[in-house]
């Protein structure tokens, strides 16, 4: 039982490049989330999903898009990467409200 798996673990991009971060969970959770973690700012919610085929904006959604085509996967896309998006990205999932969230190992993304 892997829990929440994020790929890739590390990535370096150039400004303007695009990429997709993949999150997969094997716990049959309905809810999934993408956060970014920056020094001194804690974790901030980017987008989330309350079920297959649904997405919603979080606190800092600008510059990101998401898709939840399958229940177990939640993709985070950067269409045109900017240096301000250099961060550690965490995916999480939960059964629903108000259950604890389970986190992945994170993706360290650097944009030059």
């Amino acid at each position, binding site marked *: 039982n892997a829990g*929440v798996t994020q790929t890739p673990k590390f990535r370096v991009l150039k400004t303007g490049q695009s990429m997709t971060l993949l999150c997969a969970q094997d716990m049959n959770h309905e809810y999934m989330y993408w956060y970014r973690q920056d020094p*001194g700012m804690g974790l901030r919610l980017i987008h989330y999903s309350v079920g297959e085929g649904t997405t919603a904006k979080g606190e800092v959604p600008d510059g990101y898009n998401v898709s939840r085509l399958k229940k177990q996967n939640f993709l985070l896309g950067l269409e045109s990467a900017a240096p301000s998006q250099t961060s550690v990205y965490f995916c999480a999932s939960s059964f*629903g*409200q108000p259950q*604890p*969230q389970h986190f992945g*190992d994170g993706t360290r993304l650097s944009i030059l």
Partner: protein
Amino acid sequence: AQRVTQPEKLLSVFKGAPVELKCNYSYSGSPELFWYVQYSRQRLQLLLRHISRESIKGFTADLNKGETSFHLKKPFAQEEDSAMYYCALTPGGLTGGGNKLTFGTGTQLKVEL
């Protein structure tokens, strides 16, 4: 809007000393509160939640609605407790809000020998 405040960025204590990590929140309804811990280069993991009233790894936290606080305490710090600790809040009950967590900015606990 909900908000979580952790006033200390860094807390340094000696091994065997008591630990208290402060967390204050603002929310108009009845919140669900959690403490998450992140050990060096590991994923965030749930430490405890207020409704379970458990003691995990010797840590406890009591929800004080009057002071809107959820401080994390441990009577005797151990070296392995060194980590980043995050307090987090989600609206209680079935509010349809997506179970979104609002995190504090975190407190780095350093236990010195």
